[in-house]
């Protein structure tokens, strides 16, 4: 730009410009420059905050307002104030407690093995390997499969009469398991879909953290005579601790929101109830059933709010446990 040499450095933007016709232009330029310096950062970050406020924050807050009303899907603008009726109804509703328990059990069944296996897989991937790219991409491939497709395939693999898994079990003498109607079998099957999709992803997060552990820590441990297993426990695991915490947080959030897997594992859009006896209905499914099958949007908002409270509760418990453990150590 032609004016480059005559533009004062931005620190001195307030100094008097040279007199004459150039002065006005100069002043306008410095003014623009200052506006740019001050305003541009906010303009750059604004899109994020605007979209978040409009489509995430506002709905989240408004959810609590709706949960205090009776709103039907067919007449969305008629809101009738009911106070805490939706909450007391939810509290007295067996389906809620059932869904809450299912969400917790499926959450534990899917998260704990998933993260442990991811840790092991990351450890293996951290060796000097031939074809390490292949193993990494292979581990991540399930992540590219949508819930829809994965759940369809697993439904077939877990089929009672001709499914691959029952056939394999029959080879070792196990009778056919009814993976859909037996409560624990169904929850295990659904958890396995989650595990299949997310283990490789978490393993890569762990692997990245493992590679950032300074080598001399291993050396020190080796000098102290630590075996490889001891090194794994005393160097690797503490070294990636905050990544582990991070994945626990993420998986927990994911588990409370579980929806697609149990929905499709059942009978698709007709399977909102999570099995004939609600044996694997999660809070996500209950939310959908209340809102879009029973047309009670107020009730659905109450379930959403309950999900949020559960999430907060989990984190409070986690914090407390962590603090107690830290005090003991």
């Amino acid at each position: 730009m032609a004016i480059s040499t005559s533009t004062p450095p931005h620190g001195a933007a307030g100094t008097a410009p040279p007199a004459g016709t150039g002065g006005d232009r100069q002043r306008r330029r410095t003014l623009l420059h200052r506006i740019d310096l001050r305003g541009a950062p906010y303009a750059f970050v604004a899109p994020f905050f605007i979209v978040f406020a409009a489509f995430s924050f506002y709905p989240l807050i408004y959810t609590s307002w709706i949960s205090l009303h009776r709103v039907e899907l067919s007449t969305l603008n008629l809101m009738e104030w009911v106070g805490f009726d939706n909450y007391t109804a939810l509290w007295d509703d067996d389906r809620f407690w059932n869904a809450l328990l299912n969400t917790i059990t499926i959450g534990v069944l899917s998260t704990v093995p998933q993260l442990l296996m991811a840790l092991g897989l990351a450890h293996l991937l951290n060796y000097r390997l031939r074809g390490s790219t292949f193993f990494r991409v292979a581990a991540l491939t399930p992540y590219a499969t949508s819930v829809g497709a994965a759940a369809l395939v697993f439904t077939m693999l877990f089929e009672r009469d001709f499914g691959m898994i029952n056939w394999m079990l029959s080879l070792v003498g196990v009778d056919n398991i009814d993976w859909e109607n037996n409560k624990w079998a169904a929850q295990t099957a659904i958890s396995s879909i989650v595990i299949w999709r997310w283990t490789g992803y978490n393993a890569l997060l762990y692997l990245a953290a493992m590679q950032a552990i300074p080598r001399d820590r291993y050396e020190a441990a080796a000098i102290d005579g630590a075996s490889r297993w001891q090194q794994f426990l005393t160097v690797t695991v503490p070294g990636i601790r905050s990544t582990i915490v991070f994945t626990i947080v993420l998986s927990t959030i994911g588990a409370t929101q579980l929806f697609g897997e149990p929905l499709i594992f059942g009978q698709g859009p007709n399977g909102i109830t999570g099995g004939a006896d609600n044996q694997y209905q999660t809070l996500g499914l209950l939310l959908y059933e209340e809102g879009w099958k029973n047309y009670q949007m107020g009730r659905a908002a109450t379930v959403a709010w309950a999900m949020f409270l559960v999430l907060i509760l989990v984190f409070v418990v986690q914090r407390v446990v962590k603090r107690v453990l830290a005090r003991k150590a």
Partner: protein
Amino acid sequence: MTTDSIPVRTADARPGTERNARKTTPSGRRRRGLFRHPGAGRQHHAGPVAYILLGIAALFSLFPLYWTMVAASTDNTRVTQTPPPFLPGPHLLENLGKAWQDAALGKAMLNSLIVAGVIALSTVLFATLAGFAFAKLRFKGRNILLMLVIGTMMVPPQLGVVPLFMMMTELGWGQKLPAVIFPTLVSAVGVFFMRQYLSEALPDELVEAGRVDGAHSLRIFWSIVLPIARPPMAVLFMITFVHAWNDFFWPFIVLDMTNPTVPVALTQLSAGYVRDQSLIMAGALLGTLPLLALFIVFGRQIVGGIMQGAVKG
């Protein structure tokens, strides 16, 4: 699942080693490391046991996809017999064609392509803009705003579906693609990812030099930041694309079968309208193919991107 997440770059990661990691391949780094420090824990050669275990892990990852293809290439009678088929049959193309029509996948594919493409583009653009501002520009409240961005990752977007649905109905966007696109135009993970990259890869002197030359912020962004940020932008694009393509809960609520995305259309197959099992598998295969192709071509880059800054959905 669409839950946003934070990058891995936590207290564990040392900035120094991370920077090295970006410049050299992981294997190259380890090889050098081995040369310098023999005997340290993590650069052991993998023994046969490790290879066997990794082989099993790869088998578990890939087998369901392989079997989808097998089941999609046989017919309903074969797929419902035991032992189940392990080798592909002759009906693949025929089944793919039928499933394409039964699940109306043509429209769904186009919709998913539009939705995922627009979301990925806008996420990358806005994340780079905001990431640049957070990394290199000084302004009041920068740290607080950055904390806010990170805090938003903790809020699962599913919790707001009821008001969001009412909002979309009011806007007249029910069953329309904008209802799916607008709420996910930005991503906190993306912002953080770009910020981390730019604060390391973009030298302050370049920005200063641009200022001295009289370039305004947008111009600096355009001619200095964008060229440097191209590699992470590509990675962010692909990862966001995968997430947007696979997003299920909200599209399932707001769209219907007349105008679905691929995952929504696939539920049609499980709803009992289609009785033919191999057709169901053919549909699942079709819905997965575009992303599988992306993985086959760019798998290494996606893996690298997740390891550098991690995005989860």
